[in-house]
């Protein structure tokens, strides 16, 4: 026993000296992110960057995704010196900018002649007073996932890229039979009511929430018809949408594009083996087909990093065409838009081959899930609190929306 212990100790010592000597030759860039081991695009990005930049090692600092904003803020407040922080929610970067944790990037952009046009303006969500603080590398918008096998079995036509919410609701009700749910709503506000921002006029920070009524009524109609699982049970059981859809008894599910790479992975490892496709999310009568909402994922340089130039090289690569190709290679949607990237996305092994799914890759409009706005963190809390009450049917949608209007107005008195 003692011998084994001594051997292990010796091995550990050897290894640690070995890694120390490696670290001296190699540059290590620490990147704070979430779900590093289970997110395919992170692995692809790391491999591609290291291959094209010999001598640099990317080291991910993995933070649990549900606590990401809180944990990383605490890290930064504690003078963490990790070089790059990935940004999950737009308001995180706004917060970090105000706290002085984000390195301003305009000087770097100028010096390196970095071309921002591929981001088609989305990078402005990371800018404060004209100064850029982060580079976007992923842009997820919401699409409608559907289970092709269930539609084939029911003899119904697949959802199309031009479908109104009413047509979608009818379809969901028709698909509901024999233990099949026509559709599935995750418990989030975004899954139920965020559609209102797809018209390019409404935002969730515009202080008037009357426009959400349509979507809450639509949801309640579907829940009453048994076409989706009840919010109360989903909330109590804490069931995750990924497992719910993968079970194979859900015909349709509006969800973020990121779920594509999860489903491709599920098909590969056998978690689920049905055929699926994506279509554009439904739209209201007066809104253009293919309109959706989405969120950005980006990366910023920690103002306390000791390797800022290398960090800039990395995040500019990550957002640019090469990084975008790596991100797209596993089914995730990069923020950088180009023909090459679109081709890369649809040619990923496991991506549905039908024309509808390919067409759904190019939305006509993508509104921001949450805009950058004054007091947006407070508004978020209020809207989400009333959302839970409406969804649990503690109050009617009308009452909930009146409360949202009143409480948000109080914030600005």
């Amino acid at each position, binding site marked *: 026993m003692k011998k084994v212990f001594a051997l292990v100790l010796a091995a550990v010592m050897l290894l640690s000296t070995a890694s120390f000597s490696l670290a001296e030759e190699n540059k290590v860039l620490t990147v704070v992110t979430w779900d590093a081991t289970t997110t395919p695009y992170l692995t692809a990005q790391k491999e591609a960057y290291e291959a094209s930049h010999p001598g640099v090692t990317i080291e991910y600092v993995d933070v649990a995704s549900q606590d990401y*904003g*809180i944990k990383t*803020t*605490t890290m930064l*407040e504690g003078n963490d010196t990790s070089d790059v922080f990935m940004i999950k929610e737009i308001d995180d970067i706004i*917060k970090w900018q*105000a*706290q*002085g*944790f984000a390195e301003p990037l305009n000087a770097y952009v100028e010096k390196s002649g970095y071309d921002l046009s591929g981001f088609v303006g989305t990078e402005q969500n990371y800018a404060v007073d004209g100064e850029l603080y982060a580079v976007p590398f992923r842009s997820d918008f919401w699409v409608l996932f559907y289970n092709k096998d269930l539609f084939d079995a029911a003899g119904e036509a697949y959802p199309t890229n031009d479908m109104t919410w009413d047509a979608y609701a009818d379809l969901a009700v028709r698909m509901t039979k024999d233990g099949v749910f026509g559709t599935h709503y995750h418990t989030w506000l975004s899954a139920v009511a965020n559609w209102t921002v797809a018209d390019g006029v409404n935002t969730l920070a515009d202080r008037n929430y009357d426009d959400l009524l349509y979507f809450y009524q639509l949801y309640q109609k579907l829940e009453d018809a048994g076409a989706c699982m*009840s*919010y*109360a*049970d989903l*909330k*109590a*059981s*804490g069931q995750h949408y990924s497992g719910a859809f993968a079970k194979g008894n859900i015909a349709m599910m509006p969800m973020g594009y990121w779920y594509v790479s999860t489903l491709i992975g599920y098909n590969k490892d056998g978690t689920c083996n049905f055929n699926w496709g994506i279509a554009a999310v439904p739209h209201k009568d007066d809104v253009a087909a293919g309109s959706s909402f989405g969120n950005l994922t980006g990366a910023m340089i920690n103002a306390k990093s000791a390797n800022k130039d290398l960090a800039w090289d990395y995040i500019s690569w990550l957002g640019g065409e090469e990084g975008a190709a790596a991100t797209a290679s596993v089914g995730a949607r990069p923020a950088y838009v180009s023909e090459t990237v679109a081709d890369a996305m649809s040619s990923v092994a496991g991506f549905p081959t039908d024309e509808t799914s390919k067409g759904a890759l190019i939305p006509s409009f993508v509104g921001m899930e949450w805009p950058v706005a004054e007091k947006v*963190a*407070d508004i978020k*809390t209020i809207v989400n*609190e*009333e959302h*839970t*009450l409406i*969804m*649990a049917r*503690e*109050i009617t949608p009308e009452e909930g929306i009146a409360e949202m209007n009143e*409480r948000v107005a*109080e914030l600005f*008195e």
Partner: protein
Amino acid sequence: MRADNKRPRHRMSRLERKNTLVAYSFLAPNFLGFAIFTLVPVLCAIALSFFEWNGGDISKMRFVGLENYATIFNVKKVSQNGLAYFFNRVDLGIALKNTIFYTVVTVPLTIVCALALAMLLNRIRGAVMFRAVFFFPYVASMVAICVCWSFMLMKNGPINQMILALGGSFNKAWTTDSTMAIWSIILVSVWRNMGYYMVIYLAALQGVPRELMEAATVDGASKWKQFVHVTLPQLRPTTFFVSIMMIISCFKIYDVVAIMTEGGPGRSTKMLVTYIYDEAFVKVRYGQASAISMILLILVLTITVIQFRSEKKFAND
């Protein structure tokens, strides 16, 4: 000790000094820990409650006086609309109301359950096993307990089925119902903690003098009268200790809420500590969060002072 007293004076004082030093050296690690991790942060929080600070650059900290307090109490609106507005609309009022309601219900309920269990298990066969069974929830992981209870309290969960079988009907998930959500938290807290307080009561019951019970029996007192007039008064110091400890821990309720309801639906289970967490770590407003902490500190401090005062009374009784 007697022997020590007979020794010459100068040796005794040296020994005393040594003893005192030893005692202090034993106390030092604990006090250091307390000073670094409790005392200093508390003092900082008191100071911080008068500042505006987002957790970033310390040089950007701004002294705002009582502004944080005015904001959390929403003084402007409350002075116009009265106290009802404070308890029904303002976050702090709602959190206070919920926390106090939770405490007022949980503490007596836990005491009654713990005492009943202790009386039951005091003199029955196989008591050791049952004691272990009832103590188990206290040792089990809080997260596991809360997740299990969430399942049990679902719309078609076992609890609602039992209610149905008993002739009642409740057709909603407890944790997403505005009125029942707080009761589900109370239920889990009582269930989890009663085993712990049962052990304290069991120990106290050993201290009830047999002679008293025998005398009561001889005098023809019924079991119930023995319990009310002998056992309960003998347990009074324990009950007092238990209730104070519990009131303080109830005011600090966080884990069950965070796991089971996240403060919802709406604001129906928002507690003081969940509110502090939200202000500090989600909205990075450390000044306001510290101001709310001060309210909590004052509440807990008041209870502690009452405890010290009453303890003296008990000693004089």
